[in-house]
């Protein structure tokens, strides 16, 4: 494996202006592109996932599939049908997530407001907000070697904690809103600590205990919504009371248009990411988390208490997921939460954390990407199946978690430090 491995790829900018002999910029760049380092693995994972997504769209679309039945007599039919389907589907995702070209035309013609133009972006940020929190909740636990797939349940409890404070107390907004947010975080933390305590005291694997707690939390939510204490006084369907006006998250861009749903929770999310970054890389507790995640036996020998690290890490992670719940019940679900308010943000948090490689900055970026996917998929219904977002996410993180697979498929070279993956411990 020496110098002549700069095989040109599709992504490589036109080479040839520069001489090939010395390791100049273009050459190094080419090497970088063909190496399985974490940046390129991420990019190739995204490309491969959208490619596989396109194939699945073609295979599963009835009309396009039918054009393949006479492929050999009229191949152009199959080609045009497939191309149109993919372009339409991915354009619909783009328009729902970033910029609607129709609205752009109307804006240019003067029939649409600037706020309408921002609508898709606002939706993307709205869906990204809970993902930042749940992504951080999974990512933080990852750093301690814990696989927290219980973010969904922790979020549900956070949602209920914030809701109860949000409607039961009568306070000025300055106190009420922060109090409700804190209640959400505490409820999530309490629920999140359970798998940590179980692991610390009995060795129960956190993956199983937290998935069980997810199911329990989902059923608990169904039951509690129907109780007299929480159930809406005015509506008959399964919905809770609305949160008081003083506890509702203010919208960020209400000055431009009332329909822009993105709210202050996004800022709290960014703050939480900064806090997590500080916690992990600047605090003693974060050092302990990373040490235990790296080698628990060595950490125990060094005098760290492994059990209490597991418990506190899971509690903090649960608190972060609880904030996602608070963001939901005080934000988009302020009119009352249903069993549908939580969607699957908790499970999506797993994919966010994996794509963000359990680093706060990466998690925010991944949350934005997956928030965009979600916003796009939801707005592109029913032309594009809504689960395309789940599917694409899962394929992306499958490649992220198995960089060796990407390396093998694309014949990439091994980077100097080896392949980077995330680890979770076995039984």
């Amino acid at each position, binding site marked *: 494996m020496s110098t002549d491995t700069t095989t040109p790829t599709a992504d490589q900018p036109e080479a040839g202006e520069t001489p090939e002999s010395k390791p100049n910029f273009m050459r190094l760049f080419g090497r970088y592109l063909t190496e399985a380092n974490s940046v390129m693995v991420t990019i190739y994972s995204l490309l491969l996932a959208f490619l596989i997504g396109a194939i*699945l769209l073609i295979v*599963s*679309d*009835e009309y396009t599939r039918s054009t393949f039945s006479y492929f050999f007599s009229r191949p152009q039919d199959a080609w045009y049908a497939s191309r149109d389907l993919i372009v339409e589907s991915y354009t619909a995702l783009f328009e729902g997530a970033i910029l609607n070209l129709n609205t752009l035309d109307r804006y240019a013609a003067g029939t649409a407001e600037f706020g309408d133009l921002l609508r898709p972006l606002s939706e993307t940020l709205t869906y990204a907000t809970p993902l930042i929190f749940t992504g951080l909740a999974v990512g933080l636990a990852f750093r301690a070697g814990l*696989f927290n*797939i219980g973010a969904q349940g922790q979020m549900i409890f956070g949602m209920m904690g914030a809701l109860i404070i949000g409607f039961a107390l009568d306070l000025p907004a300055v106190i009420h809103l922060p109090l409700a947010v804190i209640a959400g975080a505490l409820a999530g933390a309490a629920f999140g600590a359970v798998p940590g305590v*179980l692991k610390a005291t*009995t*060795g*129960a*694997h956190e*993956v*199983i*205990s937290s*998935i*069980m*707690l*997810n*199911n*329990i939390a989902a*059923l*608990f939510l*169904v*039951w509690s919504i129907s109780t007299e204490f929480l159930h809406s006084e005015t509506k008959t369907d399964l919905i809770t009371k609305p949160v008081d006006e003083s506890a509702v998250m203010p919208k960020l861009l209400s000055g431009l248009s009332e329909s822009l749903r993105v709210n202050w929770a996004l800022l709290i999310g960014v703050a939480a990411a900064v806090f997590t970054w500080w916690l992990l890389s600047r605090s003693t507790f974060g050092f302990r988390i990373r040490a235990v995640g790296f080698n628990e036996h060595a950490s125990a020998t060094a005098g760290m208490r492994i059990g209490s690290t597991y418990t506190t890490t899971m509690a903090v992670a649960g608190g972060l997921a609880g904030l996602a719940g608070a963001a939901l019940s005080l934000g988009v679900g302020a009119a009352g939460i249903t069993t549908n308010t939580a969607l699957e943000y908790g*499970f999506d948090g*797993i*994919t966010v954390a*994996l794509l963000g490689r359990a680093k706060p900055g990466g998690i925010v970026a991944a949350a934005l990407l997956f928030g965009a996917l979600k916003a796009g998929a939801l707005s592109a219904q029913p032309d594009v*199946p*809504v*689960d*395309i977002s*789940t*599917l*694409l*996410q*899962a*394929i992306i*993180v*499958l490649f992220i*978690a*198995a960089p*060796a*697979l990407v390396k*093998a498929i694309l014949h990439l070279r091994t980077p100097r430090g080896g392949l980077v*993956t*995330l*680890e*979770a*411990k*076995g*039984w």
Partner: protein
Amino acid sequence: MAVDTMTASPALVDESVPVRYAKAGAVFAALGLFVLVIAFAVVGGDDKTLIRFDKTLTDVEWAMPTTVVMAVLGALTAAAGAWMLAGIPKRRFKLVSAIAVTAFVFSLLFWAYSQPGTVFRAESILAGALFLSLPYLFGALSGVVCERSGVINIGIEGQFLMGAFTGVLVANITGNVYAGMVGAMVAGLLSTMLLALLATKYQVNQVVVGVILNLLALGFTSFMYDQLKKAEGLNSAFAVPTLSWGPLADIPVIGPVLFQQKIFVYIGLVLVFVVWFLLYRTRWGLRTRAVGEHPAAADSMGVNVNRLRYWNVTVAGLISGFGGAWFTIANSLAFSKNMTAGLGFVALAVMIVGRWNPLGVLAGALIFGFTTQVARDLDASGGSVVPGEFLQMLPYAVTLVVVAGLIGKAKAPAADGVPYNPGDK
């Protein structure tokens, strides 16, 4: 390992010397007292628990006085706890705990079925329990084969989904329900093949990839479900007949439970013994267990560790894929999104309860099946004191308690989840 030989010296421990079990004893004593309090304070003196043999002896009905039965069972539990507190021979501990747990569970059952309007329909409930234990059984057996070979299979849930979806799809396309079952098995096989490839050739972290494969299966089946909904007749329910063994089916209790079931039940029961036999009585089984416990040793004896793991995990997919067909075909249901509802993970817990042994898995699956069946029955009867959602939580709660190791620490195969790279040695 070398450390173990220093602590374990079994020959020197006299199993007949009484030992105090403070924690377990206190728990059982408290549970027993709790039952006694319920029996005398909460349950009315005239309350009766009705037991009916609803399929064979329809005219027989036993009415048991709830207070008396609960008091006896509660006293039994408390006595077991007291004996443990006072000191109990070590070899008796397991038996006495089992009796205490059983007595406690039965006392709760008697209480639950003492509500007016509820009848313990013994035959339906036991037959249903066996049927409901099947997803746990298939999932856990698949897990046993994988983990005995040293690969953690957290993706059982995903294999269930793939099997459930493909089973219905193939049955609809071919018009044959048995072809659907084979289709489900193949779908399971393809899912585990991906896990096997990633775990052996690419040496990835099996827990992480397993969870991702679950998400992938969820996304894939939900996506395809939406797409196929547009086409007619690709997701209609298919049913398999209930087999009745003639006169055998009329034996009270045993007949409806064992001789009046769907083919899934018989395949499941046979499979338990087949997997047990293969694991403990054949050369393949010895090699598989060796690869799961100490791959380097197996390698030095000429076993190709990663190839054996690859094929074991791949073939295990046939079992979990067939378990997926249970959700749709055995229940005569069409596929719906996320219909497995976390049972794949419960199956993992069953595998742990069963100590990675097919026979233990059978016992664990039956317990979980029984819990699920009782919860459903109480929920449906509407006479339950507890809300239905809490009854539905039962299997999950039991899993939590079980995994938390109240029944003792389970020990996984030593090399479970550790990728084997021959170059490392």
